[in-house]
């Protein structure tokens, strides 16, 4: 008789806090259940409290992995982006979140990992390592990475320069990058304010971009950064 094969998960020796900090995370039924309920409640809350409007949903690819890129004015950006993806894909949508803030202690890690499904992104020391995690994530079919290339929330409303990480991730690949612009985030929840105010939010999803025609050079990286910045800013300028 052949022996049975068991497949214990790689994180079996790890404690709860390690489970939360690790990435990629092992799937847990309870976590999926909580996240699904949270996503439903979030969608209702965004529609009622912020009268959220989303334009250009049809630009989201129906299959395959892709990257959503958005301007960053408040924490509502992440929540809004999570509302824009189809509900059944919510467990495969990973907002890249600053590890030094969102995974700094156990309660924050729990919220980030369980409710937001955040990808811990080290924006200082190990940027390259975090990018490797991102590209490995996107190699699997059907994953969605949500990135704010400005790297931090703006306090003035002026969009900051895009950092090169996103460009280095997509240069020379077929990965679709979808520029988005969220309007109203700064007024609704500026940095340093405890709770969001009931202001309108309007998310515009632009047309998908791909950079497979470019070589992996620093000139291409600059070009991609510039192009994406332009596209996002353009969405911000458009009325409707």
């Amino acid at each position, binding site marked *: 008789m052949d022996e*049975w094969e*068991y*497949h*214990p998960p790689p994180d079996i020796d*790890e*404690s*709860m806090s390690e489970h939360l900090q690790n990435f990629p995370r092992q799937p847990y*039924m309870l976590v999926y259940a909580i996240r699904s309920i949270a996503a439903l409640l979030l969608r209702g809350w965004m529609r009622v409290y912020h009268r959220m409007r989303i334009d250009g949903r049809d630009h989201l690819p129906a299959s395959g992995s892709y990257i959503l890129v958005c301007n960053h004015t408040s924490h509502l950006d992440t929540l809004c982006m999570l509302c824009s993806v189809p509900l059944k894909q919510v467990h495969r949508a990973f907002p890249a979140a600053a590890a030094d803030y969102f995974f700094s202690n156990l309660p924050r890690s729990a919220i980030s990992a369980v409710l937001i499904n955040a990808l811990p992104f080290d924006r200082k020391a190990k940027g390259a390592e975090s990018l490797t995690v991102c590209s490995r994530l996107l190699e699997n079919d059907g994953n969605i990475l949500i990135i704010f290339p400005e790297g931090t929330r703006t306090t003035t409303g002026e969009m900051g320069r895009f950092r090169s990480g996103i460009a280095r991730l997509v240069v020379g690949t077929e990965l679709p990058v979808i520029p988005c612009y969220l309007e109203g985030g700064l007024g609704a929840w500026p940095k340093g304010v405890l709770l969001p105010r009931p202001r309108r939010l309007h998310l515009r999803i632009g047309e998908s971009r791909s950079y497979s025609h470019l070589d992996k050079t620093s000139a291409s990286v600059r070009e991609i950064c510039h192009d994406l910045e332009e596209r996002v800013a353009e969405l911000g300028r458009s009325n409707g």
Partner: protein
Amino acid sequence: MTFSAAISNDIFLTYVMVIVGLLAVAGLLLGLMTALGKNVSSVWRTYRGWLVMVPLVLGTILLGRTATIVGVALLAMFGFKEFARATGLYEDWWLTGLVYLAIVLLGVASIVSDPRLNYPGWFGLFITLPAYVAAAILLVPILRNRSKGQLQQVALAIVGFLYFGWMFSHLGFLANTNYAYGYILYLVFAVEINDIAAFTCGKLFGKHKLRDNISPNKTIEGAIGAVFVSLLVPWMLWFSFPHFEPWDLVLVGLIVGIGGQLGDLVISYIKRDIGIKDMGVLIQGHGGILDRIDSMIFVAPIFFHVIRWIHGIR
């Protein structure tokens, strides 16, 4: 079992005093050994684990019958989850979810009354549930039209439900009995004492391996010592079940002494077959939940049915 019954119940209050007293003495001893420069840091970790678990267990029993049954069902679910994750069954969310649901049903059967009888706990449903659950589990491959690897998945699910769900849930059903406080507290206390006795006797006198292919640290001397200690415990805790005859005490002592170690060995060979050291990491210094409740899983149903046969459960 209610909150007000618990705070006026002599058996419950005596156990609380005994357990708190033992914890205090153990803490003092450990403090003394640390002061004398002995390296007892791993024991401290285990001790801190106890300081978390004891209030949780006593608090749940204090809250009453429903809380106790719910608590046991939750432990059974988490225990099963550890088993499912370790074996890889957890990747199959349909079967895992079905077993979770079945464990919830065990809890419900323990809480509600039999529609044709008017006392709490639907014993008939509780005892026959494994037949329905096994049938439901066996149906899953048919429903999804799949055969590859299904025998292994189904077998793991049935063992997981029967052992970690149904057998362990007998502890919760004891909350419906006439001596609920005595039975439950005796079992929890005696099983832990049995574990500690096996460990201590093994360390002190251990020479001959008990089952070297399963658990190389267990010795025959440790096992005999634990059975000996477990035979003494019921005499000291006779107040828990004042209706017991002396030979009943011998019987429950043997059930805990032998059953407890068998439960330990069952988890040991499961872990060894899978190739892992602990079932998980949940309680500091104690491994996973299954590493803690392993003995109880074996003892609870045997104790329950033997007591029911001799004395009835109400």
